[in-house]
């Protein structure tokens, strides 16, 4: 089983549009939308949801106002500025302490050291994840609650489920739509994958960001390909990006020209290779040939690799 992860460093370079197009060219495949913060792939692949599951993300503290004696120990111990002295009074004290659940990181130290036992520490539901069917094959995706934490752990959950589906359905490939950046959800998406496809636009900002995501793939030992989107916007920078890629062992796999058909396809809720025969669609088809060729020589996806970075409950 192979796993292709689409990443970018910088956001908004066209990862999701690319994921939808590659899925339609590679079908049947398992799709995983690992951009759990801002999941958009469902808007173009129209999943039919078969099962919904709660995502439990560890616990958060809550102070029971009736039991708080306002001693202040919790505020003293909290390293995350999550405890405020503005809770309601309770007959014994005029004010109590209160936990800001959005600032609480779930370490549990306040609950462990409250002598009154006034602090509850319970698991919270931080979102939902779904197993669905699309016309390209099964899909796993999620909706993280607003302002929630542990997106890396949710990504790990999605990838593990996607890998099980590949096996149970006799398929060969998982395509993961990753998130921007180089932090926790991106590391959780890449660790142990067969191949990364890095999508960039030819801009100075992207050149800077590319260098960082490229170093991350090298560090994690994941082979990578580069695709330059909207390449005609600045041909000189497209070349500089490709040169920078070659210098770190990342093979340029193609350029996609700017084409208004891409946005039109998104509005129509379709992938560009299905909605158009224009220059972008043609370039994506050629790109898929190279990505697919390269995938054949890549290692099987290492599900076990996830455990290293996956945040333990």
């Amino acid at each position, binding site marked *: 089983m192979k796993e292709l992860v689409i990443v*970018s*460093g*910088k*956001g*908004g*370079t066209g990862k999701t549009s690319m994921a939808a197009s590659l899925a339609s060219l590679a079908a049947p495949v398992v799709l995983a939308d690992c951009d*759990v*913060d*801002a*999941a*958009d792939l469902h*808007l*173009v692949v129209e999943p039919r949801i078969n099962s919904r599951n709660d995502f439990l993300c*560890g*616990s958060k503290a809550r102070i029971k106002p009736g039991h708080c004696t306002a001693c202040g120990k919790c505020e003293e*111990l909290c*390293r*995350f500025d999550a405890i405020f002295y503005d809770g309601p009074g309770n007959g014994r004290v005029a004010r109590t302490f209160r936990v800001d659940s*959005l600032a609480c*990181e*779930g*370490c*549990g*130290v306040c609950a*462990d050291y409250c002598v009154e036992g006034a602090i509850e520490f319970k698991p919270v539901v931080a979102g939902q994840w779904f197993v669905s069917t699309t016309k390209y094959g099964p899909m796993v995706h999620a909706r*993280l609650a*607003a*302002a*929630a*934490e542990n*997106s890396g752990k949710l990504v790990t959950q999605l990838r593990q489920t996607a890998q099980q589906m590949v096996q149970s359905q006799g398929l060969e490939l998982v395509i993961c739509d990753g*998130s*921007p*950046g*180089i*932090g926790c959800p991106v*590391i959780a998406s890449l660790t142990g994958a067969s191949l990364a496809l890095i999508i960039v636009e*030819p*801009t*100075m*900002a992207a050149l*800077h*960001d590319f260098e*960082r*995501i490229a*170093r*991350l793939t090298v*560090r994690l030992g994941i082979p990578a390909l580069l695709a330059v989107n909207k390449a005609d*916007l*600045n041909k000189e*920078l497209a070349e500089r990006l490709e040169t920078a890629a070659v210098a770190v062992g990342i093979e340029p796999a193609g350029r996609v020209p700017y084409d*208004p058909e891409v*946005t039109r396809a*998104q*509005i129509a*809720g379709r992938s560009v290779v299905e909605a158009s025969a224009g220059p972008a669609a043609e370039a994506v088809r050629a790109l898929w040939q190279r990505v697919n060729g390269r995938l054949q020589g890549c290692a099987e996806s290492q599900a076990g690799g996830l455990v290293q*970075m996956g*945040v*333990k*409950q």
Partner: protein
Amino acid sequence: MIVAIASGKGGTGKTTVAVNLAYLAARSGRATAYLDCDVEEPDGHVFLRPEIEEQQPIEKLVPTVDPERCTYCGACARVCRFGAIASLPKQTVIFSELCHACGGCRLACPVDAIREVPRTIGILRRGHSGEIRFLEGVLNVGEAMSPPAIRAVKAAAPKDAELILLDAPPGTSCPAVETVRGCDYVVLVTEPTPFGLNDLVLAVEMVRALRRPFGVVVNRADVGNGRVREYCAGQRIPMLGEIPDDRAAAEAYSRGQMLVEAVDGFAERFGSLLARLVERKA
């Protein structure tokens, strides 16, 4: 006044809005600071080209175990909610990338075998670009957790600046929350496409959960459709401004130029956006 420039979706133009606003605010005589809180991929420097005066490491406290004292009782591993400590029969192993620096293990150790030591997770760079004071956090490649680096950038904000612009990371989870927390106002930048709308709705949920006042800027305003504007009107979200989709602007951006300097008409557009922003909280 502290204003965060945020978005659910990546690549909508947060940095473009933040650096151009900073430029115009400073030019109009306001003491202005630009803080790049997108520590995973900080790009503001590409446009502002600051002179860096000072660099210092960003550190996070992580535990270290004194093997002379440790009895391998496992109390530290049991209390760690992040799976960052493994207690083996003859060894206590710390996974510092997973550590949230809560200090719980040190408190739990019955024999005082744990000390907390600083570990470098990134760099804080301080300088100026013309009259704009510039600060950025750069997370080390391979570090998973950006919130401690974002906290370090925000803590270093100049106290005497009239306008502090925070360039936020994309998304709606911990890094974006850490940036937006405690701000006076949030500008959400989006584009009028289905992806832009979907992610705007998520970003609105986030800023509402954080109880911050906010408004929306629509970038590449003439691509896509009218659904973002309909959504904002229906939700009574103030529309702060629109930036047109302009080939000359896209090319200037690609070269790392400031739109207000490089492209005709953009100084006026960003000027009225700045005026609207400052009026709201002046």
